[in-house]
């Protein structure tokens, strides 16, 4: 395969599709992270939240479908993946709540708290998998994964639809204004009668919900099982996209599309002899670093980010 083979429809169409799919995880996660960070709480735990979401969705869908499959091995039950998605969101919210309690109520270093959750996401899934499936690396493959509408999972449409929605919520509603004011100047917000703690709790939990959704997309949308470490750094890349996108929905969309494209390129070029796969796999990470170093110069984070609020 030479260079010329790249510029064909057979290569470009799947490339576009893969780009949209790999963007979805990043976009959902980054939009969620935006709420948390705009409210002044660094959320490095996004990676762990994705993993917990993915685990919950895969395991719950598999357990739900098991009795039906026992009767009819090809049973398709439409509500199972959706319940699994819902559960993944609930678990994501719970993880977000833990992060919120530790970093808002107990005023922990938010990065350490997030790292702890990521470490937890590296260890706990193995125990859960060992309990249900007697192995520590992957869950059982399931039949009832998310459906595809016109070639894409519904969550792909949802992710892109969420861009204008978050923009509206963040910049056109009173709640969005309060959220941003809490992240910029919590003392002033508090004086104005805004409950800083509650706003931050809501924001962090919301980011957990969206990251859990992204995880569900990975495990029962893209794949049909949970695989250990399946998020492979996408939570961190989403965080970088958030910074690159200047904490703004439109910017985040652009940044995640760029990273998604880099990842899709890596996948599409994977088998050929254009580039060794190990080199391509490093691309998104190198781009992230370049972006963070070079182009973000003018990007200004929320002023109160990372600082616990002392009433």
């Amino acid at each position, binding site marked *: 395969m030479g260079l010329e083979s790249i510029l064909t429809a057979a290569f470009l169409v799947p490339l576009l599709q893969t780009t949209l799919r790999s963007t979805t995880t990043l976009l959902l996660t980054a939009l969620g992270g935006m709420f948390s960070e705009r409210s002044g709480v660094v959320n490095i735990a996004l990676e762990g939240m994705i993993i917990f979401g993915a685990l919950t969705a895969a395991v719950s869908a598999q357990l739900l479908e098991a009795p039906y499959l026992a009767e009819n091995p090809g049973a398709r039950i439409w509500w199972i993946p959706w319940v699994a998605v819902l559960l993944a969101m609930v678990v994501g919210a719970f993880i977000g709540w833990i992060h919120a309690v530790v970093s808002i109520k*107990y005023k922990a270093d938010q990065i350490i708290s997030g790292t702890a959750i990521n470490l937890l996401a590296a260890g706990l899934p193995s125990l859960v998998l060992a309990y249900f499936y007697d192995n520590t690396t992957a869950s059982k493959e399931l039949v009832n994964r998310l459906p595809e509408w016109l070639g894409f999972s519904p969550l792909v449409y949802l992710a892109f639809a969420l861009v204008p929605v978050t923009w509206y919520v963040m910049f056109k509603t009173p709640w969005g204004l309060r959220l941003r004011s809490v992240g910029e100047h919590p003392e002033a917000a508090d004086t104005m009668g805004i409950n800083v703690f509650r706003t931050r709790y809501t924001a962090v939990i919301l980011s957990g919900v969206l990251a859990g959704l992204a995880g569900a997309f990975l495990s029962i949308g893209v794949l049909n099982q949970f695989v250990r470490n399946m998020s492979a750094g996408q939570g*961190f890349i989403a965080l970088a996209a958030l910074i690159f996108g200047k904490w703004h929905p439109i910017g985040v969309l652009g940044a995640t599309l760029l990273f998604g494209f880099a990842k899709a390129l890596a996948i599409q070029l994977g088998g050929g002899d254009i580039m060794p796969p190990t080199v391509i796999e490093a691309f998104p990470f190198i781009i992230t670093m370049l972006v963070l170093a070079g182009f973000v110069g003018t990007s200004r984070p929320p002023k109160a980010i990372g600082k616990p609020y002392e009433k």
Partner: protein
Amino acid sequence: MNRVWLALTSAVFLLLLAVSPWAVALRAFGGKGVLVTLWGTVDLYGRAKAMPDVSWLGYFTVFWVALALVAAVAAFLPEARARARLYYAIGLAGVAVFALEAYLFYHAVWAANEAALAAGARRPPLKRYSLSLGAYASILYSLFLLAVGRLQLPGGRALLVRWRGVIVPAVSMLLAMVAGAVVVWLLKDVKIPEEGGMLTYLTAKLDLVTYTFQLLFGPLLTASGWFQSLLIATPLIFTGLAVAFGFQAGLFNIGAPGQLTIGAIMTMLVGVHLANAHWFADLPDGLARAVFLPLSILAAAAGGALWGAIPGWLKARFGAHEVINTIMMNYIAASIFLFMIASNEYTFFGRWTLHMPFKFPGYEARSYEVAESARIPLMVNLFGFHQDASGTWTGALSWALPLALAAMVIAYVLGARLELGKRLLTALAVGVLGYFAGGFLPGIPMELSSKLASVRLNGAFVIAAFAVAFYNYYMWRTRDGYELRAVGMAPKAAEYGGVSIARKTILAMAISGALAGLAATHYVLGGGIDEYRLKQSLPTNVGFDGIAVALLGQNTPIGVFLSALLFGVLLTGGLQLDLQLGISRELVMMLQALIVLFIAAGGFLPRYFTDPILAAQAEEGAQGVI
């Protein structure tokens, strides 16, 4: 509030005493045992051939209930000194009664065993007996009462706050263990005899949880367990120091895995390819060793330093946050690592082919073997033991290493009046003298047990010990270290004082990276992954474990060392856990994560434990009372 806590603790204690196994008379492989409880023995094993006579155990219950009652009444005494005296008295009584109970239990077990042997049994029927949760609860409760007694006196709270460096990690550890116990409780079921009721089930569950932690801490009881724990602790010491070094300078280095990887690649390049290069083939063995071993070790440090310095520079120059950049560098390092050892031939754009000499031929992704001259000897070799042709380890326990160490410490302590640089040099010189003097002394001839010799604890542990000493020296005894800590605590004040924050950031990240890189010496040069090679199974995750080590050790040298050792013990015990109970070793990883989470939350203790200013006030205020 204090009374509520006291009442709550007493209630939990009495409850535990009532339902948990007090001791285990016999433990079979796989966890089934004969449980001794206050209300009788429960034989989950089913084939016990002898039982200890523990009918006396029930009588002591009266004592413990009385103790808890007295403790509750004591809280209402009006005078502080009287309260304190009473708590001390009942606390000491508790400790004494616990000792008596323990003695009686072991005595009963031995008596039962002797009786069985006299009756013709070939082996003692009761084995792997131990105290259990109920007994642990009684001694802990007694110690708790003693602590409550101290708290009644003036300055009690200040004392607690002064020890916050120990109390916060200890409480976090305890909470993590409780959470771990809950997880084990949920994930692992027990089988009880059919006639057993709810109480038996509860006891069996508590026994399972207790046994889980007994297994985890089990390596502390055997010499080979200690060796194995030190082996696992060695890389953790390096990565823990790396993270702690960053923390001291106000930087969070999550990049230890990547720094370790690059360190491993660099040390592989020097230890395999430079040391094996044909133009050095004529060097005498001793000289080659003197050149290539230090060079390979330095290469590991240099690789890590490079990988740490890049995010440091990016932060200093562009303000890019080190946390995300170090994470990205981890993934990039992993890619480079695979690129180097997964294949020797790569094609770019379908035209250009790159040939590399690093991968050893074969299916597995691994490098060539490290040259003999660049290998770090095993600790058993350093202590003067050698393996003969039949495979047994014999030799004389050499005095060289212990004497060198002792001489160094003595010289360092005696040289308190010397200037620091001279003091260190003197200590080092005396240490070398001690090494040679010890080499000439006749050693103690002995034979090593094969179990002990099979643990591949290597000289990297000595390097780790030196790294701890270096960290202590550099951070607290040099101007650079002082400035680093100043940048970490109050960057603006440090800058006003003339410290260049940019330069310190790069320096701190480089040294932090170098410490992480040194962990590679253990894996590649010391044969820490079974072979003297760089292999795909290089466990880079120890870089993340370093975060837990640094936090649990509160970034102090001795703390990092001890918490690395603790995790070494837990991970070693985790193997048994997997083997005996089928509980994955990942439980230890979960404990680590929870410890990090709880320490971040200050162990859920009051703010005056975690906030430096409030802590200082708490100490001051209490001194005023005295």
